[in-house]
């Protein structure tokens, strides 16, 4: 299957996600990642979309506030509405929230500082394409690196998320003041995930943790390879 990694001009975890999918994930999953430039509107050749971390368009305004208006995000919205699988990591999560694909908001960290450290997450549901290979309750180690990662939503939204088991991951050691320790959430249809920590940075034991591999393995084995069967060649080469 083919994962399209969206490249905004300020994306800086795009290559890391590419490397995790193309180099760290077992070959048996026969997956590959390709880059999609932010002004592209054609997602017909990929089976899943990944919005990587970074600073999309500088993010001097609210993170992701400008990215939501980019051409590729219109395509991503249609892709998701048609049942396509979409994962946003860090800045990608912020963009999904700004674009209205996920509820709530990501505010500045409680102590107002950027924080980069390894955290422990608890998997809260195995019922999603992103967590199918994980156990509910399974603990995962992976880093966070963000200045605006404090998940916020009104009580009603939070209750709904919980009731519908749409909280995908929770922090054991909340690094940013997120409400109810939320680290990642799903949309109602469960085909869109936003996650603040970085699974792509935890796919290689050299980096100190392989806690992110399970998420990629779930994603890559859950999504049927339909579109890529017809696709040929790279969509956009930014390497």
């Amino acid at each position: 299957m083919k994962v399209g990694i969206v490249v905004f001009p300020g994306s800086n975890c795009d290559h890391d996600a590419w490397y995790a999918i193309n180099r760290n994930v077992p070959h048996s999953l026969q997956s590959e990642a390709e880059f999609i430039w932010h002004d592209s509107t054609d997602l017909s050749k990929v089976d899943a979309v990944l919005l990587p971390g970074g600073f999309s368009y500088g993010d001097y305004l609210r993170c992701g506030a400008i990215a939501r208006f980019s051409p590729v995000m219109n395509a991503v919205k249609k892709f998701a509405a048609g049942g396509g699988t979409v994962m946003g990591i860090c800045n990608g999560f912020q963009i999904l929230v700004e674009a209205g694909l996920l509820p709530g908001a990501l505010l500045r960290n409680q102590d107002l500082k950027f924080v980069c450290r390894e955290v422990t997450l608890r998997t809260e549901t195995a019922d999603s394409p992103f967590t199918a290979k994980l156990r509910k309750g399974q603990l995962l180690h992976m880093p966070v690196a963000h200045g605006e990662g404090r998940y916020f939503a009104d009580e009603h939204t939070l209750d709904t998320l919980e009731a519908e088991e749409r909280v995908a991951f929770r922090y054991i050691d909340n690094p940013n003041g997120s409400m109810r320790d939320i680290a990642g959430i799903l949309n109602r249809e469960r085909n869109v995930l936003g996650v603040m920590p970085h699974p792509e940075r935890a796919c290689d034991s050299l980096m100190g943790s392989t806690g992110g591999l399970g998420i990629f393995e779930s994603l890559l084995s859950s999504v049927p390879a339909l579109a890529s069967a017809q696709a040929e060649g790279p969509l956009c080469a930014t390497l």
Partner: protein
Amino acid sequence: MTITPELIEQHQLTPAEYQKIVSLLGREPSYTELGVFSVMWSEHCSYKSSRLHLKKLPTTGKYVVQGPGENAGIIGIGGGWVIAFKIESHNHPSYIEPFQGAATGVGGILRDIFTMGARPIAVMDSLRFGPPGNSPTGEHNLRILTGVVSGIAHYGNCFGVPTVGGECIFEDCYSANPLVNVFALGVCRENEIFYARASGVGNPVIYVGAKTGRDGIHGASMASAEFTEESKQKRPNVQVGDPFLEKLLLEACIEAMKTGAIVAIQDMGAAGLTSSSCEMGSRGGVGIDIDLDRVPQRESGMTAYEMLLSESQERMLLVAEMGREDEVFQVFRKWGLDAVTIGVVTPDGNLRVRHHGELVAEIPNPALADEAPRYDRPHNVKPYRKARLEPPSHIPGSKGLNADLLRLVASPDLCSKRWIWEQYDYLVRTNTIVGPGSDAAVVRVKETGTSIAMSLDGNGRYCYLDPREGAKLAVAECCRNLATTGATPVAATNNLNFGNPERPEIMAQLVEAIEGIAEACTFFEAPITGGNVSLYNETLGEGIYPTPVLGIIGLMNTAVPTPVKFRSDGASILLLGGLGANHALRFGSSQYAKVILNQLWGLPPELNMAYEKRVHDCVREILADGLAESAHDLSDGGLAVALSECCTSEIGAGIRIEAGERVEFSLFGEAPSRILLSSSEPARIHEIALRYDVECPLVGVTMKKQLQIGDGNAMWIDIATADLKQSFEASLPHLLHTHNAG
């Protein structure tokens, strides 16, 4: 405008320098030309006080592809790949405007790396501030510290380069003169290196990146003068950084380089458009004509003088092949950046600038770049030092060694800097094998099986007491850090932070330090491939400690490294290199003397370079054979502090050593050439140590949850490792928090 003596003085040019300008031009310079000369001949750009002595540094070696003289040094790492690296200071701007000063310091050094075609993969920073906390300047120092740290974080995190390590030291002398030295390292293919040598008469000169504004005018001259009460007025001289734009510039430059249409490229750093054009021309032996009307401008009504001296950030100048401009423009358009042909390469070796159709400057490039004055400043005096040589007749006895150790691990220099480095994204690009808080940082190169280990070190106290020996100790410390990680040093960069070179006793410090670096870098086979000199680090006549900062890089095979911390209880603890000599004369430079005794005297620790090197070779072999569970070198704070750093909340150590002249000297003396190892195979380590003729006493064993040190009769230290960790980790946040609250 007539050039008056006052105007010349305002431009920090001496009457003699002005006469030299007149004779080089064969006429009086215009006002614009005067401005151009003043920045190009500033200390910052011309190295006029240091150049003579910098020649003493070793600059060649088997790994060196490019030594000093380009934007960054380059060394080969095998497999057709090279790395470019350099360190640079942004001391003066960071004092005036900490956030932007530090941010643009990061931006500047990153451009130096990617202008060579290398993608930056690591940043480290060496920081020095006045002490935070309860002192008259505490509040102010804190503001500088927090500003600098968030500036570095802001720029590096957004750009997408990991900040993987560094150092942060506090001394009174840095209160009014903080040091912000930033090191960056990038990687590229050997056949894709770019140089800043213009060539090809008729080739277009293209301006890319941000528009030019009035910011940063005379930044280079500001960095070449002492600070006075009026310095705050220089805030407009500090540039403002835009890391997002720099990220675009990086991607666009690297993509444009791949078109093959670029002949030469140079970033616009200090002295902006002026230095980039005249240096590119001078290196290539050609001239450059520039039409300022074509320069993208952020504001209207700028004069030629302002445009030439602006230090607006995130700009590059490049020379393209004639007729292939469109290939370059296309790439920059894709990234949404300005790219405009503003000039042309000419045969005559002159920098010629037109504005509104008029010729506003015409200067031979070599006059600016190569004919800058060089001074052999007087230095035949003893280097400046006020500290006494003889130890005090009575060194007060410890009031409690446990309390002393807890105070030391909580002291600003030695405590955990987690509060700082957690604000940096040290993991982006997924190459960081060893991040901040270790002896050396290690970053893998994904394209090869090689990893780069890197260490930054300087010790102002040592250098103040003896600049030559202090500089050698810094080199040795870096190399020891690398060895403890398993890496072999291959090259170095240095940042020389000193006071006013016009004072002979300061100049003597500089000369001594350079000669010390030269000697040690030659000995440890770490040639200097570039660096930076920052002089006039004085405020109101009060200078900093002489502070040469070394950045040394080493190579190693990519593998999971041996950690600093103990891993299991019941392992043997060995002190490779031995206990070392610790006497009163050399105890005065220690952290114990600083923190507990509040004194400074004597000499820095004694370094035997041959022995030091044997220790390095020995530990590399031990690590390569997988014999050590942990490895950590002894540094500031001596044996007891190093042991504390090896402990985890679960694993401590029981240590038995002979008491020397004084227990404090044995516990806290800072002799070099020592590395703590824990191992389940001490006999095999002893064999190797014997072969290298290196002492390697068994000093103890790891155990659960307690650090105990004694001589078998008396127990000097007995502390729960949880308490050590608490003191170590909580100190800096506590210092900062109590101040923010109060």
